[in-house]
């Protein structure tokens, strides 16, 4: 009887260990309660429209119910909220007539600067190189840290992640990463707070590392 219990326990522990190893290999696991080092964390997000009226300064992120109406911006805010419930987010909606371009990104960054935001994430990408934006980023690199995700699909040219002075975060092995970039082994993330939240996509990597710093 004792032998049987021991054997079953051993089997259960082996299966659990393999499970944990596979999870760590295929996911970035974040325990929300242990991740926040700062009670008054304030971060910036530049993205497109949200699905609802909102203030540009968001103290308490209201989670959207349902899934079909969520925008890219909604999903980023939801991710940030699940990562740290007490975070304060300065959100700049850079979308005008359905388009986000380099000049709107610069406007957003200037707004972050005026509000003394030190960390900003941009989970957007384009193949267009803007000399003006590159100059802005280099000029202000000591004041504001910009995190940008590489696209989910591989691009030989991928901005803003490829700009100098930007911390690009990606998961594709073939990306020609800069020295300050972060290459993750996966773009699948599990956040565990009261519940378990699973996210997939490079969009979440920039906010993850911005929050994690």
């Amino acid at each position: 009887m004792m032998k049987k219990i021991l054997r079953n326990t051993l089997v259960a522990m082996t299966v659990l260990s393999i499970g944990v190893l596979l999870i760590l290999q295929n996911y970035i696991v974040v325990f929300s309660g242990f991740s926040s080092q700062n009670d008054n964390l304030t971060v910036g997000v530049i993205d497109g429209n949200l699905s609802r009226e909102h203030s540009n300064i968001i103290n308490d992120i209201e989670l959207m119910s349902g899934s079909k109406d969520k925008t890219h911006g909604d999903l980023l805010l939801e991710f940030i909220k699940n990562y740290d419930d007490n975070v304060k987010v300065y959100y700049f909606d850079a979308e005008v007539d359905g388009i986000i371009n380099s000049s709107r990104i610069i406007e957003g960054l200037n707004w972050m600067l005026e509000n003394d935001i030190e960390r900003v994430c941009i989970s957007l990408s384009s193949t267009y190189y803007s000399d003006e934006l590159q100059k802005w980023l280099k000029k202000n690199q000591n004041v504001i840290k910009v995190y940008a995700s590489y696209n989910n699909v591989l691009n030989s040219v991928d901005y803003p992640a490829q700009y100098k002075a930007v911390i690009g975060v990606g998961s594709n092995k073939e990306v020609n990463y800069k020295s300050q970039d972060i290459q993750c082994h996966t773009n699948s993330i599990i956040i565990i707070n009261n519940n378990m939240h699973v996210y997939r996509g490079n969009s979440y990597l920039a906010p993850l590392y911005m929050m994690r710093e």
Partner: protein
Amino acid sequence: MKKTISILLIGILVINLFSSPVYAMENNSNETVYVDGVEFEVSLNDDFEIVVRGESGDNVAQMILESDGEAELEIENEEIDEDRQEFELEINDLKMNEVNVEVCQDNEIVEEYTTVEEVFEDEYEGQVAIAAGGITITIGMVLEALLYAALAVVVAGVVYIVVTKFYSAVESATAKKKKKAKKYYYPAYIWGTKVAVSPKAISKTKAIKRVKQKRSVYSFTSALARSIIVQAGYSYYPTGSKGEINSSKKSGGIYLYHYHQGTKNGRPIHNNFHSFYGVPVVVK
């Protein structure tokens, strides 16, 4: 609760194991570039034409660009036999800061790119989900691939190929083709820190005319490089059998030995033509 989480985690793991994206990159001398996840190969064929080929699932695109900027582009979906489109492109300029491309189908203009912004749209998007199956390949994507590869530039309807690639292509050509290619002159273009040459050979007479117009020329030997300067009625600088090279002055790029036009006092005339020659020197 723990049991539910375990079941959920194992379920997610199983799904993930079957859906993990796999990337592979071929290791060859062609330039491989990615546009929106589509892998394009940019290479030179035996006739020194530029071939841009991209594949995504059943979608295949291939463009062959001739030395005069004329190109044929085929975009097809291999799954559907009739879904095949052919375009003729007239590429007058294709550089990172200048674009002038006319796209025709059945002798009618269907698309024109006159600014860089029309090829590289100043538009940002949230990272999309990894597309299942093929991504539709567009004309703009093929042009982007050609620009990214930085293997060639088109200026005023003339295609100039990075000299290292052109030199390698000549060296690996058949003995007959190689011997013939090395007798001629080639229009040259200084492209940032690189030198690019048109693969369309020109005669000595045309090369002399070109240096008289203060335009650069490439040839395979120092004797050829000097002779066009002399026959144009100039003296050459430096005066020896070996030209000068600027590789030690700069940090990185592709450099070639070359001659300048010389003055009566044995000084070089800069900001004029270069008569380049020989093996390219790559400085990293």
